[in-house]
């Protein structure tokens, strides 16, 4: 069973050995004349300005978290809406009231995020 894979292992082994050998031999035998200018980053000949490790403000995570509000809302509201008529006949007005309370709690969170400026991008 496993003998069938021997050619594959040989090919993989050869690929790894060849790749490592090529890179290593180029490092070992290739002439290298590094200078400070040659090793500096290429910025079309200009002086590189600033660091590449700048701090980037992450705005998207607020949007992603706000999405969870609507996502959860939709998850609960859809089945409720599909089954609403039969549930209303069975239980009565409390079906509507309980979902309303649930939505109000969610909208409070939504309003809080809006007041905090969660939708302002800049």
């Amino acid at each position, binding site marked *: 069973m496993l003998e069938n894979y021997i050619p594959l292992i040989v090919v993989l082994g050869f690929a790894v050995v060849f790749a490592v050998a090529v890179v290593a031999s180029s490092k070992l035998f290739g*002439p290298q*004349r590094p*200078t400070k*200018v*040659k090793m*500096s980053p*290429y910025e*079309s*000949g*200009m002086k590189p300005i600033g660091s590449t490790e700048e701090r980037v403000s992450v705005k998207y995570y607020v949007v992603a978290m706000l999405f969870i509000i609507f996502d959860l809302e939709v998850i609960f509201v859809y089945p409720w809406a599909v089954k609403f008529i039969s549930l209303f006949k069975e239980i009565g007005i409390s079906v509507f009231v309980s979902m309303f309370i649930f939505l109000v709690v969610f909208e409070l969170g939504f309003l809080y995020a809006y007041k905090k400026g969660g939708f302002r991008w800049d």
Partner: protein
Amino acid sequence: MGLEAKLMNDGFITTTIDAIVGWARESSVWPMPMGISCCGIEMMAVGGPKYDIARFGSEVMRFTPRQCDLMIVAGTVTYKMSHVVRKIYDQMPDPKWVIAMGVCTSTGGMYRSYPVVQGIDQFLPVDLYLAGCPPRPDNLLNALMLIQDKIKNTKAREFQDIPLLEPVKVNGN
């Protein structure tokens, strides 16, 4: 026609390292296009299908110095730009060659004025000066062929003996 026709009888060839490295290098000269001004347009024409620099193995114009062998300085080099040209030349790996394309690059040309470097040989080791204002594309191809001849006759490890260029100041700039 090609190599296989020559090898049909014998099946093998002998050569020297210098010959085969030179042949490989001259057949794959990758230019660094420093298209600074109007000569750059002619250089672009060389890359197009009519003049077709690909016949010489030089169609891979790299816009990074890391992969280039030949710098084609095409255009008027001002003192401000000379630092850029020199830095990009310094960032190219050895061995490397330079074509000064057009009279502005070679001598300053008609710009006999204070902002223009009067010939890039003041800060670069130029291998070939190409006359014309601007030179025709076939003229640049001729220059490339001359450079190829020079590369073919360069020994494989010759560049290692060449000392690295010292920083220069051109007219105090």
